[in-house]
């Protein structure tokens, strides 16, 4: 395989990380918490699609849509039941709860589907593009993943910049009490953030499982952690940061696998994170605002 193939595959994996990282970063920005169960929502989304396509034999697009709806609802329910009662608790208590929710989702999946890997049928049905006399091949999955990531990025940026709900999200992320005083329903805004993040996790699940077609209850765990790293790498709380962090992480991971060592790839990814954080503790695009008095 050529360098360009590795790069494009890295771009595709990075796009998935970016989509997951968006959920992490939005929830962090608005609820000020790390939702460690976020990765497992990806896995739930994967199983929803798997069940619908294999059991009910519905068409892939419909399966993906149902999975998005299911994950959106799941995200909102998780927030209401597990996190909302802890709004005033210490960050550590919330973190432990999130880890608990993560295990809960994995174990429920284990109970229902067992631990053996399921073969996931790709939801993408597109012809690969072949460039440079077949030297470079871009699969349908890769094309869709990159396109989906770009569309999501643009749509989300427009939503936040141009809509009232988007502006309300920014206001809540800066100052909850001041946002309430504007008439913004802070709890509603937090729910909306979880809904969007979890819906995106479902999209990421469909793309990830299509590109790497084995599905187990732990499928979401590693991509979830990587996406979290991507979000921190780009600057947690920053939406463009999640995008850039995700893409860079995917590329670094794939190029390390290709040219250095596939066993070392994860270690390299985490080393890069540590170096970036040493140089710039807020991540690539993270900002610190000092307020004037």
């Amino acid at each position, binding site marked *: 395989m050529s360098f360009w193939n590795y790069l494009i595959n890295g771009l595709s994996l990075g796009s998935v990380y970016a989509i997951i990282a968006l959920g992490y970063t939005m929830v962090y920005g608005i609820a000020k918490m790390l939702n460690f169960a976020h990765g497992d929502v990806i896995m739930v989304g994967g199983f929803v699609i798997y069940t619908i396509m294999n059991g009910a034999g519905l068409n892939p697009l419909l399966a993906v849509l149902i999975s998005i709806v299911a994950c959106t609802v799941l995200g909102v329910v998780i927030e209401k039941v597990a996190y909302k009662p802890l709004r005033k608790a210490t960050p550590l208590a919330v973190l432990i709860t999130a880890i608990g929710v993560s295990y809960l989702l994995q174990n429920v999946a284990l109970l229902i589907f067992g631990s053996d890997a399921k073969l996931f049928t790709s939801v993408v049905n597109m012809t690969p593009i072949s460039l440079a006399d077949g030297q470079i091949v871009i699969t349908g999955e890769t094309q869709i993943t990159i396109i989906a990531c770009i569309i999501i990025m643009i749509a989300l940026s427009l939503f936040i910049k141009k809509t009232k709900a988007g502006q309300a999200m*920014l206001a809540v992320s800066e100052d909850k009490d*001041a*946002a309430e*005083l504007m008439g*913004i329903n802070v709890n509603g805004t937090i729910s909306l953030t979880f809904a969007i993040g979890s819906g995106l996790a479902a999209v990421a699940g469909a793309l990830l499982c299509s590109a790497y077609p084995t599905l187990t209850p732990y499928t979401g765990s590693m991509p979830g952690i990587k996406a979290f790293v991507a979000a921190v790498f780009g600057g947690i709380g920053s939406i463009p940061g999640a995008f850039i962090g995700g893409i860079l992480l995917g590329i670094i991971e794939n190029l390390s696998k290709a040219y250095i060592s596939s066993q070392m790839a994860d270690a390299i990814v985490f080393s890069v994170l540590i170096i970036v954080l040493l140089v710039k503790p807020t991540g690539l695009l993270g900002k610190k605002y000092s307020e*004037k*008095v």
Partner: protein
Amino acid sequence: MAMLEVKDLEVHYGVIKAIKGVSFEVNEGEVVSLIGANGAGKTTILHAVSGLLPKSKGSITFEGTDITKVPAHKIVSLGMAHVPEGRRVFAQLSVLENLKLGAYTRNDKKEMESTLKMIYESFPRLEERKNQTAGTLSGGEQQMLAMGRALMSHPKLILMDEPSMGLSPIFVEEIFNIIKKISSQGTTVLLVEQNAKKALSIADRAYVLETGNITLSGDANVLMNDESVKKAYLGE
């Protein structure tokens, strides 16, 4: 009937009782001032009125509606706005975005535009800097933005928490002129201040708060000449 009626209000922070049974009222068209030293409970009272803090006892009525248990985000659309202590502008958003958030509960675009125009007339600096991020404004400009943002909801009653805090004398003068103007345009004002002299000079009535209790109340010009007030708050 008064526009705002606070009766036997008690507010706790955990086990600490910060407000110990306070009653006061604000009539339509008035400027009422609440003065008191640091930690007396002024901010706590305003937060309780605008719904940011739960009340342990007592009741709050706004234009005849019991708002004791109404959450803050629903109170704005009843016609009450709150300029919080320390401005609390959204630092990463532009001046214009801040102002638009002030009108979050309003749906009529046209009316909103005309309110925006009026606010730009009162605060020309805000129009000059409308695309600047709020965090880069000076303290006085941030105070103007916080006031403009509250006015964007077109309130009948505006609560202001120490609008002159930390400002240079020229800005203090300007801020108090603007409060007078807001009042003359028909908005009722409940003003919390440590600058008692200034506050009493523009208020109709005032209440003096001491560690969670109201100890004195009356016409502002009477309080201004009260010996104990002079000694404790006017530095005379």
